[in-house]
């Protein structure tokens, strides 16, 4: 892997972390607010259904997670599992695609 690609991955990881920093703070406040008095589907859907603001927020959240998680797992595969090369990167690309698909599937499920 070239230094250029390594630098790009490092930058992408930090940029996505900065976005996630904001998203996670909002998410934690929402979680603590939402679980008071028990978690119900109706309460969640009342907040998210038809809300363009929440849809945009969670879409950005999923995009940042899709970038951030595979790059983080890449370091762990390399350092802790000694898994390198194309097979690792291909597996992580598949994982990224799955996260993006499942994430947007979930976002749409609470929006529509």
């Amino acid at each position, binding site marked *: 892997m070239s230094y250029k690609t390594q630098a790009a991955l490092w930058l992408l990881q930090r940029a996505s972390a900065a976005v996630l*920093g904001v998203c996670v703070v909002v998410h934690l406040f929402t979680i603590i*607010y939402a*679980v008071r008095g028990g978690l119900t*589907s109706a309460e969640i*859907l009342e907040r998210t259904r038809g809300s363009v603001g929440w849809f945009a927020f969670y879409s950005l959240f999923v995009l940042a997670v899709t970038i951030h*998680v595979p790059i983080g*797992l890449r370091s762990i595969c390399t350092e802790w599992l000694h898994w390198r090369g194309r097979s690792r990167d291909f597996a992580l690309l598949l994982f990224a695609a799955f996260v993006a698909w499942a994430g947007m599937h*979930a976002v749409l499920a609470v929006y529509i």
Partner: protein
Amino acid sequence: MRQHASYWAFVVHRVSGIALALFLPLHFWTLAGALEGSLAWTEAPLVKLGEWLIVVALAAHLGGGLRVLALEFLPWRDWQKSLAAAAGALAVGVGLAFALAL
């Protein structure tokens, strides 16, 4: 080295990251499907414990990530030595707030 706060900050950041990566597919699957049904199963004590652990992992990973960003992008100051403690305090604070709300 293993006595050092920075080492533990690294371990907590990494282990919480792995936990969150493993939880993510489950979270999306639950959101996409289970919202049509009841969420009464989330009242089970073991589920609540799991929820609590994952929320603390999220807060710990956030704290650890902010620590890394502050170390890498801000000019060095003495207070940056205390960032590992600040990250821990954030995780404990969020854990307590979530436990009180449960």
